[in-house]
């Protein structure tokens, strides 16, 4: 069990859902494969996907849905 904290690559607003009212991309405890979408970052009205670069189990989010985030800020923990 090694928990890795992944930093947000971009500044913007973090979204855990593809659209309002839809289910989140990932819940805590979900299995994550490389390339899976963890969430979206809205940067200047453009939505960029945050894709997993390592596989594992999602342990925690450090940023809430629809909250601002800075580049380099811890975004989520993954158990690899």
């Amino acid at each position, binding site marked *: 069990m090694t928990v890795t904290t992944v930093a947000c690559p971009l500044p913007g607003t973090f979204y855990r859902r593809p659209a309002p009212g839809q289910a989140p991309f990932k819940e805590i405890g979900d299995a994550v494969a490389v390339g899976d979408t963890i969430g979206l970052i809205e*940067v200047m009205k453009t939505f960029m996907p945050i894709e997993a670069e390592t596989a594992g189990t999602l342990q925690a989010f450090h940023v809430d849905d629809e909250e601002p985030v800075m580049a380099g800020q811890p975004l989520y923990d993954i158990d690899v």
Partner: protein
Amino acid sequence: MAIRKLLVANRGEIAVRIIRAARKLGIATVQVHSRADADMLAVRLADEAVDIGPPSAAKSYLNVAAIVEAAKASGADAIHPGYGFLSENADFAEAVAAANLVFVGPTPDTIRTMGDKAAARAAARAAGVPVVPGSDGIVTVETAPAIAAGIGFPVMVKAAAGGGGRGIRIARDADELAALLPQASAEAQAAFGDGSLYLERFIGRARHVEVQVLGDGRSAIHLGERECSLQRRRQKVWEEAPAPGLPDEARAALCSSAVRLAEACRYSGAGTLEYLYDDATGEFFFIEMNTRIQVEHPVTEMVTGVDLVEEMIRIAGGEPLRHRQADIVTRGHAVEVRINAEDPTRDFRPAPGTVTALALPGGFGVRFDTMLYPGYTVPPFYDSLLGKLIVWDGTREGALARLRAALGELGVDGIATTAGLHAALVRDPDVAAGRFHTRWLEDWLERRPLAPVPQKETAP
């Protein structure tokens, strides 16, 4: 009632622009801002600043209650909405009036009519303004095929509640239309809370030409037209006044039609009527009216000598129009290019960040409207417009030469900008000749991707 204290319900370069106009009139200013914008230039320039909420625009610049409350608490007697955000929100204009404050703009009824594409089209037709052949009102999955056949393919499927180029699809034939309708309706419902759709003939090679008007609720005048065909993803990037190559007869017909519609709706304030102009036939068609100041208003100011933001504040304060139509004389040529925090060499990827150094162009005929200052950090939460480089000269050729020189002086260090795109455009032979249409820029970008380092022209 003359305005004494004006609250600016916007951000970025337009907030700076409004503060400057107010200050010239001796009006005190209150700048509202989100928590991410506490150090923006407009906050530094304004007499007072009020924090109205978190970075998210929905919780700050779109928060009607917080903005009205800030106006009341600061003793402001008027609110200028700028462009975007709440500028074309009739409910906001109503809330401002209900709080006994002046809204710098037209009446809520006018905003509502012009904000509903089908209603705006009906108003234009009633005023004798040509509209694009299309469905008169909302279509359904059942009625659309016959109506589309009557209009002629290709047709555009548009969301009645859309705007800013959003919610538009093109169907080339009946099969495409049938496939597209349910999806377009669902998307419009999700994006705008209203799934209503209407149809319009798709005009392939058109110019986007728009007319600036000012009205005081009794009479209206026009201040000539702007050419805004250079667009990417339906966002304008380069604007000019007057429109190059527009025959005088077409110009006169276009501008007088705009005045007819403005007077018919007893328009008050600054507004813009957008048209498609078909070079081949000389026909023009009304698309929509924007009931606010527009990003590209400075090119009109440069050729007419009229400060549009000052005039809209004066009108909101109860003054009648200060100019008659005969007083408006356009002189020379102006070009504006939008400097956005986007990297044109990487598919216009957004580029927020800190401006480490800033070199601004200047001199005769050069104007730079911006919110930038050295050390400013451009936040990631809002649109990418950083500033507008505007040049004027006696001729279009002279204005382009001045633009080339001014772009050479402009230096924004620390973040990527679209300045390089404009440096390439200003050297393009089609641009120099004014030979372009609304899809020209996207074709040009596809043919000729911008290299990270400026290269010599290779395209014919």
